[in-house]
């Protein structure tokens, strides 16, 4: 079982003078599916980016801990799998090349069996050698899930995970979310009722507007 925990301490974010959210506190540990919800512009993507260490909060702190102690920001990317509509993969490479490049840059071994398993699971195995620029938006979204899962991170952050997906794609994603939620921390930022129904706890950003 994972001993990973993410703790938010009085997290606030301002863009210029505009307050996005204020004093968010939570402690998500070990495993489970946790949701972040709120209307458009409420700061869902901003919050997940702060949790992933991609942007800094205006005040407060996010602490990632595992069995060996607190994780330093420099190493945080190795512990996180991230999917979002605004994530872009390298279009001049094929799906297979993209995944191989990511493994090499991360410094982890490229597990062919695992990648093939995910490619089959996300219905991309027959297109794995095609350039990503020839993919539909739904296929690109499914490839992003493999990108997020292939290095077995302790935390999975899914920002609008089902956007651009058809019913079949959504089914695959929900299956993965439930499976992964039984082993690690999964964070979903979404407004979709079906996405949030999977969560054991939902953070409503309207409640943190000061």
């Amino acid at each position, binding site marked *: 079982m994972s001993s990973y925990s993410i703790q938010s301490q009085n997290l606030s974010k301002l863009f210029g003078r505009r307050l996005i959210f204020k004093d968010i506190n939570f402690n998500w540990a070990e495993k489970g599916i946790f949701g972040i919800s709120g209307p458009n512009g409420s700061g869902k993507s901003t919050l997940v980016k702060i949790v*992933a*260490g*991609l*942007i*800094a909060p205006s005040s407060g702190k996010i602490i990632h801990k595992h069995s060996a102690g607190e994780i330093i920001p*420099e*190493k945080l*990317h190795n512990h*996180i799998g*991230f999917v*979002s509509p*605004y*994530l*872009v*993969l*390298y*279009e*001049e*490479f094929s799906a297979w090349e993209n995944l191989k*490049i*990511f493994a*090499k*840059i*991360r*410094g982890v071994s490229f597990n062919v069996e695992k990648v093939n398993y995910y490619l089959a699971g996300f219905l991309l195995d027959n297109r794995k050698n095609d350039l990503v620029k020839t993919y539909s938006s739904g296929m690109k979204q499914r490839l992003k899930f493999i*990108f997020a899962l292939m290095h077995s991170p302790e935390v999975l952050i899914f920002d609008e995970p089902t956007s651009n997906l058809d019913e079949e794609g959504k089914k695959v994603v929900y299956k993965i979310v439930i499976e992964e939620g039984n082993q690690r921390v999964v964070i979903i930022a979404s407004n979709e009722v079906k996405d949030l129904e999977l969560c054991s706890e939902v953070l409503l950003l309207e409640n943190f507007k000061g």
Partner: protein
Amino acid sequence: MIAQAYSLFKKDFHSELRTRYAINSLAMFIIVAISVILFSIGNETISESLTGGLFWVVIFFTAMSGLARAFVSEEERGTTLTLQLIASPSTVFSGKLIFNLILVFCMNLVIALLYSALFEKFVIQNFTLFILTFILGNIGLAVASTIIAAIIAKAGAKGTLYPVLSFPILLPLILTCVQLTLFSFDGTSFEEAQFELAIVVGYDVIMFTASYMLFDFIWKD
């Protein structure tokens, strides 16, 4: 970290081979710039000092036309976030620096070869000094261009901002390299050029250390 930075360099190298984003613009700029200089001087013979100066002018503007690619292309394609999710800032900086170093060396080698073939006064007397100037100058140019590219990548008017920001930062390097190139033309000894060489070495060390320390803050929003 070195292996990961090398993997990032390889990714950029293969991406460049497929997109030809930087190579084409650099090659075109070199050809156009040298052609314009040759047309403008016509049959006249230009002095050694002017040849040396024009050599570094072409190097500076060629660098400005292609070296920003390292970060600007990631930003334009929207892949910056992807890179932030797979690599630490030090890996990203090192990978991009390796790419720019190799690009600068190849580009300047072509410029030097064209100059030696086309310009009468481009005659090197002290070859060791020229090679040393060339290597140290290229390192300084690559390091400064890489960190400036990272700074301007998120800005709106990247094309204008890059040379404008680069000019004051690269001026001490370019001026010293011009002087050292002239020394190599007139056969000045290594000992007499020590002061200028020390300036270039100092510039490279300071620029590399400052860039490495600053990159974390530039890379993350």
